[in-house]
């Protein structure tokens, strides 16, 4: 260890050594006072060590002359008088003189301006903005001998003052320095040489303009002199402005200016913005404001006092009373010219029977169409009044507002022209219309072969289509709590009756009766379409179509509520899944969830979303009355099962069985898998896994211990769902456009594609071979039809294939569901088998196995081909499976269509 000699370790200075000394070397302690934080006095006492000692008594009789007046400075510390104290005594180069002069001048200008200005008192603020320089005019005047406080004009002789200021005026505040005594003033007043002239008095011009504003009498706005200086310079302003000189005014001015010279004046902190200014009781009340001598009442005419001779008084009076009869207030004089009388505009005359409260009188005319209207309105809105009252008035439509106001409906244009026609005419019109529509359709059909579904069809056609699509499915629509028009109860009611009638299979024409008759035809047509769509939407929300659309995540609108972005799906599907023991993706919901940061810390886990400020499930704003709040879009069941099956397959065949359980694949199947795995080379194992038909999976569920009646039901449900899927044309319409680009390359692949079709037919034939021993006849038919249709539909499916190749390896549910459909057929077979001969199961398994082997052979062939064409093998392979599925998937729909 090296220790450097002489190096001193710096220690912090202890508290007791942290001292401060003043100028004279005395210790000072820190103190929380305002003046720099040092102690006041002697250790917070009075100034000496002994404390406060009264000064010795001195008789004032002998020492009256040098009587000392104690000012504030006498009670101050030395520090306060120093440079940084509160009352520095140093000579500083301030512009006190200049500013004072400026103040006086400005004040005058302000006062003049303040009276004239539109808003009195505003000029006070100019001072805050304006430059603080003395103008050149003032400078010039000064050069010419003008002094502040003097008027401008020729010098005049002065009359002797009649009233002297009281010599014993008490000056409050700080004492004047002894040098500046009032002697000069006294001299000026007393000594009055003959030939001395004086400058004219600086008089405020009295404004005599008539009062035209609405201020109170005597209101002057913000008086700058009062507000800013606390000085009352104008108390004795002589309103009458007689010829006589008023010395008190001059004196007041003088005293005023004198007071300004003192160092400490006025209020300490000024007046706050929110407090009213108090009267300055110390500064304003000087005795000079009061008359100390009895004198005449009228300063204007100094001849006589109140004891003036009668004639004199009456003479003065009479002169006024000529013009004005009545008593004139003190301090007021009659105006020389009368102000112009303001013009008065009389209010309009009210009619005699006028009542100030307005009310609407419902008047129902007895007209024919009016009666109908009335009735319809009553029907549609009668019971919903109570609901409607809860809504805001902005959410109402015209008819609702009309209802609420109790007004009659519009008489002008009736709902439609049809209303005026007789029944017969109407029928005839409709027939004509339909006929023309039929013609139109017929004409249009050749042009748009299968895209016709996407053209704007005529309402009748559309409704037919809708009806067909809705079919029996709409039986569950509308009856439940699905309320797409909950915001508009009237409409909702219409919709419900509409759906009900749709269920009963009424004709479209009949359906129109449920629409609001007060609407125009166009509106009705639109609403009908809307209803159709709503019904369709609700129905298909269980099918795969709705799963294709995802909800908007970010919307801003006013009328929104915050709801969790992801909600757990409805339980119906899940319950069926649970009954089928198909746990997994069906029963699982996965959400993004943001744990609290501290929670992550305590769990010793890194925060998964370090940037997010959300905690819990993310929320989005959504329309309060949106349809989406009533619908929870379930997962596409068919595709999911497919996916899960595939997943199981993957897991199993990749020799990675996760958990051993008795629900796992049976030994036989394992054997099968072994044989499969022999086929599969490691390089393309994954592709082959995908290609394997999920037969083992279905066998799993088929041979499982819990394959009972409920599954049957659900299977049928699923079948129905399959049927209700949007037509194939839709997919075609979407995908066909891109097929053109690929057409060149499709030639190249055509020879490969032949292979899958044969394989499909192969498999189908094997199925048929299977069938006769077990299944019923209609099933057989079904399958037969399937094969037939599959053959016939091949070209189109090929097109689709080309199109879908662009979309990557993942299969859209439409195609994958086709495969599932076939599975279901098989499953049904299984079930039937089981029901008939349970002992046959073994046998059937063997058959299945055989079938599998056959397929494997096919695949083996494929592989050889694939080895030849290594580059494009993947896509082809997937297309194989696609092709396979499409043809079968299409079949039930085609069957239905025929």
């Amino acid at each position, binding site marked *: 260890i090296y220790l450097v000699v002489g190096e001193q370790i710096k220690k912090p200075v202890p508290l007791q050594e942290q001292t401060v000394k003043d100028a004279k070397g005395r210790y000072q302690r820190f103190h929380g006072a305002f003046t720099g934080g040092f102690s006041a006095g002697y250790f917070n006492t009075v100034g000496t060590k002994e404390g406060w000692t009264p000064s010795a008594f001195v008789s004032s009789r002998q020492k009256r002359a040098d009587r000392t007046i104690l000012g504030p400075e006498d009670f101050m510390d030395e520090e306060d008088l120093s440079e940084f104290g509160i009352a520095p005594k140093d000579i500083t180069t301030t512009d006190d003189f200049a500013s004072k002069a400026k103040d006086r001048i400005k004040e005058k200008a302000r006062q003049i301006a303040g009276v004239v200005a539109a808003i009195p008192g505003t000029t006070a603020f100019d001072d805050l903005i304006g430059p603080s320089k003395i103008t050149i005019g003032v400078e010039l005047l000064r050069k010419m001998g003008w002094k502040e406080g003097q008027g401008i004009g020729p010098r005049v002789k002065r009359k002797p003052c009649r009233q002297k200021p009281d010599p014993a005026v008490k000056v409050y505040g700080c004492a004047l320095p002894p040098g500046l005594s009032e002697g000069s003033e006294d001299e000026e007043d007393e000594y009055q040489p003959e030939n001395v002239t004086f400058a004219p008095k600086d008089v405020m011009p009295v404004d005599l303009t008539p009062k035209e504003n609405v201020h109170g009498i005597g209101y002057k706005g913000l008086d700058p002199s009062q507000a800013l200086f606390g000085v009352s310079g104008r108390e004795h302003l002589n309103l009458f402005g007689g010829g006589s000189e008023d010395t008190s005014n001059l004196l007041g001015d003088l005293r005023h200016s004198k007071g300004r010279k003192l160092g400490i004046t006025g209020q300490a902190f000024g007046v706050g913005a929110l407090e009213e200014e108090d009267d300055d009781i110390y500064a304003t009340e000087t005795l000079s404001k009061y008359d100390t001598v009895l004198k005449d009442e009228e300063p204007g005419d100094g001849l006589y006092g109140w004891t003036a001779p009668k004639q004199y008084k009456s003479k003065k009076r009479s002169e006024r009373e000529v013009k004005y009869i009545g008593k004139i207030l003190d301090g007021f004089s009659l105006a020389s010219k009368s102000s112009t009388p303001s013009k008065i505009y009389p209010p309009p005359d009210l009619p005699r029977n006028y009542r100030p409260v307005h009310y609407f009188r419902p008047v129902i005319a007895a007209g024919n169409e009016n009666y109908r209207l009335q009735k319809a309105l009553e029907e549609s809105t009668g019971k919903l009044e109570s609901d409607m009252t809860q809504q805001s008035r902005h959410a109402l439509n015209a008819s609702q507002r009309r209802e609420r106001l109790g007004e009659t409906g519009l008489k002008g244009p009736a709902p439609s022209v049809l209303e005026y026609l007789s029944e017969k005419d109407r029928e005839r019109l409709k027939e004509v219309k339909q006929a023309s529509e039929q013609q139109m359709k017929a004409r249009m059909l050749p042009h748009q072969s299968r895209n016709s579904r996407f053209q704007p069809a005529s309402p009748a056609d559309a409704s037919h289509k809708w009806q067909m699509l809705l079919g029996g499915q709409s039986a569950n629509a509308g009856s439940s709590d699905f309320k797409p028009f909950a915001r508009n109860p009237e409409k909702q009611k219409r919709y419900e009756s509409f759906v009900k009638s749709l269920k009963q299979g009424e004709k479209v024409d009949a359906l129109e009766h449920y629409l609001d008759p007060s609407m125009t035809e166009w509106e009705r047509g639109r609403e009908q379409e809307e209803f159709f769509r709503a019904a369709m939407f609700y129905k298909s929300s269980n099918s795969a179509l709705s799963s294709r659309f995802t909800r908007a995540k970010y919307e801003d609108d006013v009328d929104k509520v915050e709801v969790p972005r992801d909600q*757990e799906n409805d*339980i119906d599907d*899940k*319950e069926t*899944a*649970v009954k089928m*023991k198909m*746990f*997994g*993706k069906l*029963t*699982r*919901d*996965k*959400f*993004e*969830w*943001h*744990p*609290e940061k*501290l*929670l*992550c810390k*305590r*769990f*010793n*886990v*890194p925060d*998964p*979303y370090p940037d997010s400020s959300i*905690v*819990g*499930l993310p929320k989005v704003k959504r329309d309060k009355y949106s349809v989406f709040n009533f619908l929870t879009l379930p997962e596409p069941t068919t595709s999911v099962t497919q996916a*899960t099956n595939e*997943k199981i397959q993957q897991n199993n065949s990749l020799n990675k069985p*996760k*958990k*051993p*359980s*008795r*629900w796992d694949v049976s030994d036989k199947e394992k054997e099968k898998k072994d044989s499969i795995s022999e086929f599969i080379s490691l390089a393309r194992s994954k592709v082959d896994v995908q290609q394997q038909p999920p037969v083992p999976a279905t066998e799993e569920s088929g041979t499982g211990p819990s394959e009972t009646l409920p599954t049957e039901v659900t299977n049928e449900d699923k079948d129905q769902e399959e049927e209700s899927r949007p037509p194939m044309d839709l997919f075609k319409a979407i995908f066909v456009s891109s097929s053109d680009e690929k057409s060149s390359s499709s030639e190249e692949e055509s020879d490969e594609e032949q292979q899958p079709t044969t394989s499909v037919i192969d498999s189908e034939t094997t199925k048929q071979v299977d069938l006769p021993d077990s299944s019923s006849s209609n099933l057989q038919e079904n399958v037969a039809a399937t094969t037939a249709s599959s053959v016939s539909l091949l070209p189109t499916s090929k097109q689709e294939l080309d199109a879908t190749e662009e979309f990557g390896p993942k299969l859209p549910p439409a195609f994958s569901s086709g495969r599932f459909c076939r599975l279901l057929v098989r499953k049904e077979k299984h079930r039937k088998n089981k029901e008939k001969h349970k002992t046959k199961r073994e046998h059937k398994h063997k058959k299945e196995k055989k079938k599998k082997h056959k397929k494997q052979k096919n695949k083996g062939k494929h592989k050889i081909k694939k080895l030849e064409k290594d580059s494009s093998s993947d896509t082809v392979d997937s297309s194989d499976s696609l092709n396979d599925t499409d043809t079968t998937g299409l079949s039930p729909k085609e069957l239905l269509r025929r």
Partner: protein
Amino acid sequence: GSIDSTIRCWDCRSRRPDPVQVLDEAKDGVSSVKVSDHEILSGSVDGRIRRYDLRAGQLYSDYIGSPITSVCFSKDGQCALAASLDSTLRLLDKETGELLGEYTGHRSTAYRLDCVLTEQDTHVGSASEDGHVYFWDLVEGSLALSLVVGRGVVQSLSFHPTLPCLLTATEGHVQLWREETFQPDGDTA
């Protein structure tokens, strides 16, 4: 886990009275909560098992249907066992939610009964309302043992994490079961 359908996480270190986070996703009372090193597993009366994965920032919700009375992790952390009021125990794959096993035979319709996994994950145990404690083979799903504990409902059940040792609570009795002599292979009670 609370009957007000929330799970609340408090920070014991800071001793603050208010919870760090409230997990209010459950639609009904939370009957059972288990915590692993980075997960919170909860069973709710609304028939769902919710697993909050803190590491992945995900919430997995598995629908069972019947009100869940008890949940627990397997020792290897791969599976979750859930007992529900339809007298069934279900073993689910934690990652995928798939059903790995189902165990029935006991009675659980009204009480909130516990379920356990043995120390080696070989067997699945559950209390029952008929006064027994049932043990199933985890893989086979077959009933391995029904242990007569008392006459009333076996209210609570707990298994030693490392030793074959069982603790039961019924009718005011707490019993410790430790019988090695039964079978050398696994069926301990």
